[in-house]
């Protein structure tokens, strides 16, 4: 199949950028989207042009490195799929595909499609961990976790930090990401001790990094390649409200 690509090219963080049109021919429909870009880059190198900078690592949908906007949607139009797992059979021969970086103040563009998502790391550093001593691995069933909590924690732990939620949000909010982290730990016994300090610290960091607020539009949850539910945000709101009472009454 043959495609026309309109790709965002930007030399560096402060350089202006623009969409540049390329055509790629003989794309195999079994290729992943990133492999298709690899093919394009090879042809650009042959011509002596600068290849398109994009990020990837695992290429199996678990590291979260590869996100970009494909036809106006994070990771493209296929449900619950990262860019690296999106296959070219999802596109039509002759189609024009627009590819842009994720856009947010807190995700500055480094080059072309690559953005700096270290603001996410700093949110995690502000409280997304457990620092109390939990001893060595307990015997199975020594600490009981009910099924619903375990399932919820597991669903939230599926977050790969790709940033699609921020990219999709009309307010460039990191609420789904932060909510997932807060509820992942907040649902488990080991996370209880720091539960209410954690939520306050992570929300404060999220704001400081320049992310927006939640309008409950629900865009993030649709965009999330791991299917994290919008309710993670409501649960985080509740924990933050409760933290005001719990920490004040101490």
């Amino acid at each position, binding site marked *: 199949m043959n495609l026309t690509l309109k790709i965002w090219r930007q030399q560096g963080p402060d350089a202006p950028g623009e969409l540049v049109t390329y055509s790629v021919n003989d794309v195999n429909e079994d290729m992943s989207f990133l492999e298709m870009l690899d093919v394009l880059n090879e042809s650009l190198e042959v011509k002596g042009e600068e290849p398109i900078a994009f990020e990837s690592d695992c290429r199996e949908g678990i590291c979260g490195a590869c996100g970009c906007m494909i036809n106006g949607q994070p990771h493209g139009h296929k449900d619950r799929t990262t860019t690296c797992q999106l296959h070219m059979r999802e596109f039509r021969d002759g189609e024009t595909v627009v590819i842009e970086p994720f856009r947010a103040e807190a995700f500055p563009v480094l080059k072309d499609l690559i953005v700096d998502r270290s603001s996410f790391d700093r949110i995690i550093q502000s409280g997304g961990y457990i620092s109390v001593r939990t001893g060595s691995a307990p015997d199975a069933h020594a600490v009981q976790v009910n099924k619903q909590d375990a399932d919820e924690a597991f669903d939230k732990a599926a977050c790969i930090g790709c940033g699609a939620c921020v990219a999709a949000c009309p307010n460039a909010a990191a609420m789904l990401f932060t909510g997932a982290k807060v509820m992942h730990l907040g649902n488990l016994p080991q996370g209880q001790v720091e539960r209410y300090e954690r939520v306050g610290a992570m929300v404060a960091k999220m704001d400081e990094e320049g992310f927006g607020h939640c309008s409950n539009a629900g865009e993030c949850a649709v965009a999330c390649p791991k299917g994290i539910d919008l309710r993670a945000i409501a649960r985080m*709101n509740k924990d933050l409200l409760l933290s005001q009472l719990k920490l004040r009454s101490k």
Partner: protein
Amino acid sequence: MDWLQRFLTSTIGLKVIMAVSGLVLVGFVIGHMLGNLQIFLEFVEEGMGREALNQYGALLKGNKLLLWGTRVTLLVAVAAHIYSACVLTLRARAARPANYKQHKWLSGSYAVRTMRWGGVILLAFIVYHLLHLTVGSEVTPSIEHCKVVGDGLQCPIFDNVVQGFRQPGVVLFYVIAQLALGFHLAHGIWSLFRTLGLGNPRFDGIIKKIAVGTAAAVTLGNVAIPVSVLVGLVGGAV
């Protein structure tokens, strides 16, 4: 008080301010509509709607505590609501300084997308509505024209309403504003529960129904009054 300030200036805290003030306004809007729907008692017997509406106004305006309590509460709620809406909108703008060349909405409904402009229409409407029926204009004399009679007030509210709504332009603006209110509430009521932390899947369905049901009821109820007057169903004798 440091902690309170930190909470209330956080994005979530500001959203809580918006939700709580929104909830106060929703309560008022429903009560206000129910009160005004008494105009339709005109259909039961001519003069009954007039009497009910004028009585209702005299009750509100006669009791200074009730009147000013409501006014101050509403003023604070509107101010808080607009303040948080503005701060959050500015922050959201700053959070995405460059827009996408191509962007597709994934689930955001018409209601979600019009919260801000809908809000601006509502603000314009609130100002106009107060000038129209509370402060009063030449066309619609109001509060000054409530007269003390015996130990009660007598207010010509029914006449003001009818005279006001005989003008098609006025009715058109009211109808547009009520549609904006309907959309604002359809998303807003649902959203406020989420903002206040209700994330239990068991309540999802019912909350969606409450939000859309309330929005539809408020819109229909509020549209019915000016339209009925305009087409002459109510107030024929004025």
